[in-house]
């Protein structure tokens, strides 16, 4: 449990850095690592991030080197859902969410976003002739999530929902995520064993989505 934390910290950081954690001032070193891993293990069991997150942010603020760490931890912090919907009937071809316990809520979020997708496509066809990109951008923000959309030429809709507190995911990152999704989806479509319209059960596709969610970029 602790070993990945310990080996991650360079000795200079362990010697010099003093960072506030909560109310106490502790040298950033072994004790922090313990604290961190305790936090993470707590997360693993409870899944509740709200209490741990501020402390973690404080601790990592100002240390650019820690970015690598943030990336790993985002697996826990990053609420992300990606959904692919079929052309006309809008039933889901593929849904994946991290964490998986509140999946039903995301189904709802995604389905409510479909109206916005329809609206964007229909206006893009008429009024804004120059705006005919496949990426639709931010569909709508809610208090907790941001919902992004993408529609292929074959009218297959991709929706990604991310936690609004996740500031590292900018427009460009989301765009490249959609590109990746689209590329993999094309591969699935060209697979002779896949019938268009069936739910996607490709292992290659699964692993691509998993990698994307871990990376969250």
């Amino acid at each position, binding site marked *: 449990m602790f070993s990945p934390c310990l080996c991650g910290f360079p000795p200079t950081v362990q010697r010099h850095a003093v960072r506030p954690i909560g109310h106490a001032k502790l040298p950033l070193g072994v004790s922090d690592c313990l604290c961190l891993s305790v936090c993470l293990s707590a997360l693993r069991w409870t899944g509740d991030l709200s209490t741990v997150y501020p402390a973690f942010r404080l601790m990592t603020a100002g240390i650019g080197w820690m970015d690598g760490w943030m990336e790993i931890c985002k697996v826990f912090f990053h609420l992300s859902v990606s959904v692919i919907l079929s*052309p*006309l009937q809008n039933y889901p071809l593929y849904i994946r969410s991290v964490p998986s316990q509140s999946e039903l809520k995301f189904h709802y979020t995604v389905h409510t976003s479909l109206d916005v997708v329809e609206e964007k*496509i229909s206006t*893009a*066809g008429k009024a804004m*002739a120059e705006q*005919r*990109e*496949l990426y639709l951008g931010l569909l709508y923000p809610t208090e907790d999530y941001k919902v992004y959309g993408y*529609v*292929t*030429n*074959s*009218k297959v809709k991709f929706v990604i929902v991310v936690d609004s507190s996740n500031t590292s995911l900018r427009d460009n990152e989301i765009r490249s995520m959609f590109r990746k999704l*689209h*590329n993999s*989806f*094309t591969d699935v*479509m*060209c697979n*002779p064993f896949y019938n*268009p319209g069936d739910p996607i059960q490709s292992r290659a596709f699964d692993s691509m989505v998993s990698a994307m969610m871990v990376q969250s970029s």
Partner: protein
Amino acid sequence: PSVFIADMADEALFQFLHNEVIQYVNSAESGETENGRCVSKLENMGFRVGQGLIERFTKDTARFKDELDIMKFICKDFWTCVFKKQIDNLRTNHQGIYVLQDNKFRLLTQLSTGKQYLEHAPKYLAFTCGLVRGGLSNLGVKSIVTAEVSVMPACKFQVMIQKM
């Protein structure tokens, strides 16, 4: 030059494969009365291939404005990718009927230009009809595609759009 040779090899491969597929399907359906079934089998093959192809080809293109925009894409980009040339003439009555004319259709160029094999021509066009129908259907346009030949390497594809 190497790219050029690879391109030519691709083309030859596609033609040989296409010819073999026709031979195979034809021999599987024994007797002359089964000609219709042979054609529809080839057409269905083309349909699935068209669906996959169009998914790939439209990956980086902008969203299409309308039906005509889609047809232009089929005539130019799609045809160039598959047959190494564009459609020579596209006509429409603006009510859902499009006629695509190819004066030197790739899959017919190896056949004699006389009337000798004219009766076999439908088999050599069925796959392409399916290809177009599959491509269009994946872009959300339901259609019926038929082909006709009067003089051998030239042929016309008629696309009838089915309004939903």
